[in-house]
């Protein structure tokens, strides 16, 4: 599904996953895709959002306000104690990992795909399943690209997909701030024609 995505569009999906992980959410929803777009200040999607007055911090706090943060999945004191009970010193493991890969390396890394777990919608990017609405956004992005006769899917198409999806949290956040598909279309075509 990601074959025709541009570099920045792929980047936005990776950032979206990072955002979901950062909020300790176990799903990748439309709201994370919106955050993903906002993370790369050079992308067309982000530039359009800048012009529409939508900022990263504001969106992130709105998401936290509406859906909250999940429980962290970090290796905590309880894990350390459980590992010590079977003869493994987590602090020593952490120390050695950090010696090779830098401070916080063990915490920064997100574990890879978990086999045997349910795959929502069959398009997971390794560990977090997409919600049906997030998947819909990507389908709409593809449709937008086709309608514009573009042979790639860029961040601008994902943004158009987000406003057109209508029901997800991202669409709600954008609608509340008077970001209609019409306004997005106008701003995107301005940006694409170099204005």
């Amino acid at each position: 599904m990601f074959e025709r995505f541009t570099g920045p569009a792929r980047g936005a999906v990776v950032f979206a996953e990072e955002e979901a992980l950062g909020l300790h959410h176990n799903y990748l929803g439309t709201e994370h895709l919106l955050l993903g777009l906002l993370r790369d200040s050079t992308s067309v999607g982000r530039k359009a959002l800048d012009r529409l007055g939508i900022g990263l911090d504001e969106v992130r706090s709105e998401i936290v306000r509406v859906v909250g943060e999940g429980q962290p999945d970090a290796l905590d004191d309880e894990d350390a104690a459980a590992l010590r009970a079977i003869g493994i010193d987590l602090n020593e493991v952490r120390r050695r990992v950090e010696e090779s890969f830098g401070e916080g390396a063990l915490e920064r890394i997100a574990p890879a795909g978990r086999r045997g777990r349910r795959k929502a919608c069959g398009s997971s990017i390794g560990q977090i399943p997409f919600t049906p609405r997030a998947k819909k956004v990507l389908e709409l992005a593809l449709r937008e690209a086709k309608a514009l006769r573009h042979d790639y899917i860029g961040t601008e198409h994902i943004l158009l997909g987000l406003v057109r999806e209508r029901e997800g949290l991202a669409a709600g956040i954008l609608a509340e701030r008077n970001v209609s598909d019409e306004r997005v279309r106008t701003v995107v075509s301005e940006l694409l024609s170099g204005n």
Partner: protein
Amino acid sequence: MTEATKIAIQASSSDPKVGLRGVAALRRLVERLETLQVKNARDLGWTWQEIARELKVTKQAVHKKHARRRFLAGR
């Protein structure tokens, strides 16, 4: 006595709860270490075949588990 020591002492009484908790924590630790090591190997130019050999799994298994994210990340 620290909390950790208390739990360690409980472990010697073969309490399944503590033992299973240890297994769960170990699994999570292993997953993190694997991701970190695979990423490092790919950054150093290792092929999936070479990585699979060291992990003692098939190339398909390691590719399926780790490749998609790297593809998306544009590498």
